[in-house]
């Protein structure tokens, strides 16, 4: 059901991991639906994304879109990274099955959430960026039931 590109990014995901003292971190999605993405950005003084890492809990498409999204924003300026839409991620992966399109949206949201975190920390405004809505912590109480 997945394209070769998706499978390749799922089997060999790029940029998995954390960035200690990241300039911006964004986490979106929720465990209830089975997808959580976290993106770490390392941004320099010229507003260029020097490094980008991710961690994802989710299906094959969720992992592949995270991997591709990190590849697409790496080395870009903040404004260029804002142009990395879910469509761009999907196209770069040679498409996704219709039921998995939401994974690419999540990837876009994760990038935006990390940029928002960076903007807040540095008291700057990034044009076109809105406050992220997703909050994964609503499910925290469920952990105790395990």
């Amino acid at each position: 059901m997945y394209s070769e590109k998706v499978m390749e990014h799922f089997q060999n995901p790029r940029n998995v991991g954390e960035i200690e003292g990241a300039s911006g971190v964004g986490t979106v999605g929720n465990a209830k639906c089975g997808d959580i993405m976290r993106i770490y950005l390392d941004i320099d003084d010229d507003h260029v994304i020097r490094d980008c890492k991710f961690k994802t809990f989710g299906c094959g498409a969720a992992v592949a879109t995270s991997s591709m999204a990190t590849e697409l924003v790496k080395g870009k300026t903040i404004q260029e990274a804002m142009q990395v839409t879910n469509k761009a991620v999907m196209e770069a992966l040679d498409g996704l099955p219709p039921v998995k399109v939401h994974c690419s949206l999540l990837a876009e949201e994760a990038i935006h959430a990390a940029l928002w975190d960076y903007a807040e920390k540095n008291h700057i405004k990034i044009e076109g960026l809105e406050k992220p809505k997703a909050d994964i912590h609503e499910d925290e109480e469920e952990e105790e039931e395990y």
Partner: protein
Amino acid sequence: MSKRIYLDNAATTKTSPEVVEAMLPYFTEHYGNPSSIYELAGESKEAVSKAREEIARILQAKSNEIYFTAGGSEADNWALKAAFEAYKEKGNHIITTKIEHHAILHTCEYLEKRGAKITYLDVDENGVLRLEDLEKALTPETILISVMFANNEIGSIQPIKEIGMLAKEHGILFHTDAVQAFGQLPISVDELQIDMLSSSAHKINGPKGVGFLYIRKGVKIRSLIHGGAQERKRRAGTENVPGIVGYGCAARRAAETMEERTKKEAELRDYLIGRLSKEIPYCRLNGHPTMRLPNNVNMSFRFVEGESLLIMLDGYGICASSGSACTSGSLDPSHVLLAIGLPHEIAHGSLRLTLGEETTREELDYVVEKIKEIVQRLRDMSPLYEDFIKKEKA
């Protein structure tokens, strides 16, 4: 990929070569229509009767109580829809459970739109119905109790005998979906007081596309398909002769090998559960620890999502299934795992491994190693695991 390890026998099984061999002549040699009168047709007719008798014998039923269908879902649909219609005068209430197969649950939803009142009973944390809940749910309008013999996802076996007694006591029909149980567990319809029972050939090394509904003599039930006189006029249409022959053969094989085979499977099952539970942290067994199908293993691995796990297992030639949303085509994980009280994210991380007659310990050793490796790999990638570890350290 060097070798395939098939651990999805609850989805379907490999058709046994013996079964295929038994079926083949009924395609090209004995191809007559059982309803015709010449000798060629007689051979087909006899083969169908023989299969029917074989199956009836295993259930300790009469052969005219076995009605062949095109599978388990058809049998489930028939039992519910036709009983609802036939017993309308008496009432409109049906009792079932929250962990039934969709062939039952979706049929119940269909009937609800047509005036049926359905009670969906909860199950306990092991996936077993509580008899007191069933007793409390009974009303004078109750016409049918439909409870599966054993669950397809988590393997839990239901208290069928007690349900049968309760149904009999109250003069209510009792149907059981035995798709996973027939051929795996001994079933006597009289001893268990079952009025209707659904089953499917391809779960026991038989062919796909054939099943049966057992209907106790005296049960009023409407015909499913109108037309010819096949299946005592209750399910018209020329019989699937090769399929029925295959089912007869598969059922006989399953009954003959049941004791030895299920003993071996249960040992391997417990070995697999033991190793996974011991060697992988933060996992749990889903379903009843002992009262479960001899071939069913269902585990949840925390911080890991099921579809990812399945794709990676497939990369190593291992076939399994999961109750994660991504494998169900909706955003919700398996209704069975939610019914036993699992939080969503843990239900998403479930893995079902169902053994078959050819499964070996060596295969399971390989599978355990691969699951360990994959779970660790996915956890290293999981933000949930990252948060958990940080919290543990703090």
